[in-house]
């Protein structure tokens, strides 16, 4: 042992050490107590917080998409259904080399650079272990070939799902609309929580309007995931609530017939049941195949549709705004009778033109009608009578009366994108154009030209209101009987559910028109019947062909104005400059069961092209749905 340089007091050193060891032991005890205190804080005081965090870590909530409700026509025929389809998906975590895998997949599946582009976009945003679709709607053949070779493609899955399908293709497309892949814009207007698992959403038409009814509620699946996000097991599951099926008032047969009647022409047909506003047919030609849109329309196909001069994507029935032309004459006549501007038997002499006092400008009529009264002016479509009447009434009065029939405003049909049209008056012109109203303008508005704009659905609705002798209806596509199907179980949860939609769809946008002299209705309706049945009726050709009493009115919407002193020669001018042909009608005149508005773009005259369409539609409908034998109005 090494020597000591001073004397050592071993007793003292031992004592010193023991004190120091005791102090160290005490210190250790205190530190352990601090640790235990911290454990107590974490595991008792803050336990709930950390338990939540732990659950958030391990439990992922996955939404399960609900099955979309079907759409039926009034007789229960399926207009939109869900078909099983197969999607090719790739799971990023399990695919080692994307490019190589795609190259090896090529012999088995058709896909183009657009598919790959979309895949690569989704690839980066995919949640862990979530499949990214490459190709939708694989053919049976491709499914079979891929299934056999599955082992060669790790991370490539064939996933079965349901895809929206429109079995009748373009039939009724402008009423039905279509679904398309959910995008960012949809998510801004929809509840993102309800659409977490949904891939497709209504983009237009009924599919859009009744999205909330058709969609249903997503189910929820709680799964346990590991740190990579891989699903290890399903903890529990709440099944999705499928969307409700809905029934439309549309009649598939009539709809197809209407589209066939329009043939190759551009135009629109709207047929209503005047008793309740139920839309029987709503056609806009040309149409397109909605199935193209379901899984992403190709850029070129879309461009072709968009840029076609006939504008097939354009819903003329509710968005097309046309001057109503002579179709408003019955309403102007009613206005004149109501205001006592005209007596029923009061005649004028029509020389084929009209001039304002002290002016030389001639407002042309299509022919010189000679001596005509108001009723004859309707049936023969004498313009001079209405030029004169318009001057007597004045534009403000006339506009107000036309608006009582819902013209110049949205009808409130349960379809998105309806346009309002325009019934102008001096006030409007001052506001919109900053110009005064000229009396010459009043003259031409008396025959529905000038600034006046109406949509086919407005004209059909106005025709229905005349048929109802002033009682307005609101055009709607959702059938009454659907009400039972549409969310009756959530009556308390209104308003965004089906009940409210149905209710909203039934409320007319205008008040009933009460005439001082009730028989004025009969007078005007008789004049409209004379349009098809009278010897000089402008549409007498259809009256001869039809077994039914049709009350109608022809109309011509000017596309191209004819200079003073020129003759209108429809043969000589290019087709796209020809006038639009219009016809409104309802039948049977005594107890109307169908009201129709037809427009044939560049069709020339209403009597020649539009009226036969309306007549054939009416005849077919009344033949298939004959009035009850006792002739009584059966409800509505």
């Amino acid at each position, binding site marked *: *042992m*090494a020597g*000591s*340089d*001073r*004397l*050592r*007091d*071993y007793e003292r*050193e*031992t004592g*010193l*050490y*023991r004190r*120091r*060891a005791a102090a*160290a*032991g005490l210190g*250790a*005890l205190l*530190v*352990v107590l*601090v*640790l*235990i205190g*911290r*454990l*107590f804080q*974490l*595991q*008792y005081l*803050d*336990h709930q*917080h*950390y*338990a939540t*965090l*732990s*659950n958030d*870590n*391990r439990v992922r909530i996955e939404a399960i998409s609900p099955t979309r409700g079907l759409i039926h026509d009034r007789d229960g025929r399926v207009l939109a259904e869900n078909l099983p389809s197969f999607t090719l998906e790739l799971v990023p975590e399990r695919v080692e080399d994307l490019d190589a895998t795609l190259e090896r997949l090529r012999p088995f599946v058709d896909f183009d650079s657009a598919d790959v582009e979309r895949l690569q976009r989704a690839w980066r945003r995919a949640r862990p272990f979530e499949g990214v679709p490459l190709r939708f709607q694989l053919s049976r053949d491709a499914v079979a070939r891929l299934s056999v070779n599955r082992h060669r493609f790790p991370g490539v899955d064939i996933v079965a799902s349901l895809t929206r399908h429109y079995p009748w293709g373009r039939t009724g497309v402008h009423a039905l609309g279509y679904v398309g892949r959910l995008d960012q814009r949809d998510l801004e207007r929809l509840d993102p929580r309800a659409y977490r698992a949904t891939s497709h959403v209504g983009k237009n038409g009924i599919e859009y309007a009744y999205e909330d009814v058709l969609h249903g509620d997503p189910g929820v699946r709680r799964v*346990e*995931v*590991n*740190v*990579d996000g891989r699903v*290890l097991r399903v903890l529990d599951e709440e099944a999705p609530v499928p969307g409700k099926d809905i029934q439309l008032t549309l009649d598939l047969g009539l709809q197809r017939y209407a589209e066939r009647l329009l043939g190759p022409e551009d135009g629109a047909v709207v047929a209503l049941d005047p008793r309740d506003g139920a839309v029987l047919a709503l056609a806009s030609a040309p149409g397109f195949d909605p199935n193209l849109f379901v899984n992403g329309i190709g850029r070129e196909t879309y461009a072709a549709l968009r840029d076609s001069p006939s504008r097939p994507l354009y819903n003329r029935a509710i968005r097309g705004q046309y001057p109503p032309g002579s179709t408003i004459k019955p309403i102007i006549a009613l206005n004149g009778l109501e205001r006592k501007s005209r007596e029923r038997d009061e005649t004028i002499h029509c020389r084929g033109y009209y001039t304002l006092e002290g002016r030389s400008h001639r407002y042309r009529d299509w022919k010189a009608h000679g001596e005509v009264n108001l009723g004859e002016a309707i049936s023969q479509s004498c313009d001079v009578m209405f030029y004169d009447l318009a001057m007597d009434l004045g534009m403000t009065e006339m506009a107000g009366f036309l608006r009582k029939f819902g013209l110049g405003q949205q009808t409130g049909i349960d379809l998105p994108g309806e346009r309002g049209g325009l019934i102008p008056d001096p006030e409007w012109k001052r506001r919109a154009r900053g110009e005064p109203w000229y009396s010459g303008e009043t003259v031409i508005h008396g025959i529905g030209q000038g600034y006046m704009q109406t949509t086919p659905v407005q004209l059909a609705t106005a025709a229905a209101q005349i048929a109802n002798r002033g009682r307005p209806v609101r055009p709607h596509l959702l059938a009454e009987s659907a009400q039972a199907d549409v969310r009756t179980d959530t009556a308390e949860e209104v308003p965004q559910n089906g009940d409210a939609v149905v209710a909203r769809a039934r409320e007319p946008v205008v008040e009933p028109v009460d005439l001082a002299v009730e028989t004025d209705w009969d007078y005007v309706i008789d004049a409209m019947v004379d349009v098809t049945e009278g010897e000089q009726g402008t549409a007498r050709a259809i009256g001869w062909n039809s077994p039914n009493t049709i009350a109608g009115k022809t109309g011509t919407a000017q596309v191209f104005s004819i200079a003073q002193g020129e003759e209108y020669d429809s043969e000589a001018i290019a087709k796209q400059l020809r006038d639009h042909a219009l016809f409104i009608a309802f039948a049977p005149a005594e107890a109307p069961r169908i009201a129709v508005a037809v427009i044939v773009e560049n069709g020339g005259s209403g009597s020649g092209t539009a009226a036969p369409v309306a007549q054939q539609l009416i005849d077919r409908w009344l033949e298939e749905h004959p009035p009850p034998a006792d002739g009584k109005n059966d409800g509505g």
Partner: protein
Amino acid sequence: MVDNDGLLGGRTGGAPLTRLLLVLRVDPPLLLGILAIAVVGMVVLYSAGGASTDLLVQQGVRLGIGLFVMLVAAQIPPRNLRLWSPWLFAGGVGLLVWVLVAGEMGGGARRWIDLGVANVQPSEGMKIAVPMMVAWYLGDRALPPSFARVVVTGALIAVPVAMVAYQPDLGTALLIASAGAFGLFLAGLRWRLMVGVLLAGAALIPVGWHMMYDYQRRRVLTFLDPESDPLGAGYHIIQSKIAVGSGGLYGKGWLNGTQSRLDFLPERSTDFIFAVFGEEFGFFGGALLLFLYLCVIGRALYISAEAQDSFGRLLAGSLALTFFVYVVVNIGMVIGLLPVVGVPLPLVSYGGTSMVTLLCAFGIIMSIHSHKRLLAP
């Protein structure tokens, strides 16, 4: 000097197993504590390893090797240890120099020497060599030590600590430094001096902060508050706090820790194994484990107090307290009280080197206890 040859102050008798242990110079209470902790460790490791016995078998082998080393160490008389101390220390420092010059890289640090047969990590040995050196140097003269000797001791500690810290291996450097510091403390370092040193250190912090570059400051801040970097350094600590906190009072049950089973906990079988334990066994489990550690430390401190010379006392005492530092630094890190430092949970964390070093230290403590002279000097 005559050794008592295992008679432990004349006490004989007891159960045959106890007698055998005494003959082998093993302290039964200390061994019991160690084994209890090791068993807890095995149970947690089974869970942390994904209910697989792979890690368990390897850890068992290491525990066996460690116990054998402990047994061997317990046979070496403290007198010999004292004689070897300067040479071990000098050899250790020499190896550290070698490491710095020609060490093998591993995990971003230069820690290993490849001897052809085996890899050697000299810093691990310094955890024992430094307290031995301190005990040898201070125990040689009367205590408490003079100021000059404190300074020399400080230098003896600082040299290896600096070299290990430079590797960089902050955890080991911290343990070596605390082993030396505890030697000084137990030797009777004056309180005034301790307070003075601490204050001086505290005063230097702002100066050092001022001299650092921005990126270094950021690094220090992240070191002190890992949660400011939730995806990087903070991720470990956030997940381990979630694991421990979600365990609650009673824990989620063995093998039911979701944080560990679903891989949310990184390093869960090594440095962060206490998080698994806390998650599955809860507050009461954690308190029990801390109690076991406290028992082991208490027993070791008691043994040190019973030692017959300054060398034995200081060595046993500083080894015991170093063991305690392991526990505090590791658990403190896991439960978010201390910064993240790579220190394993002794006898529980998966890993061989620390297990062997620790059991070797316990062997030395047992040796000090069992080689008592009949007569005090």
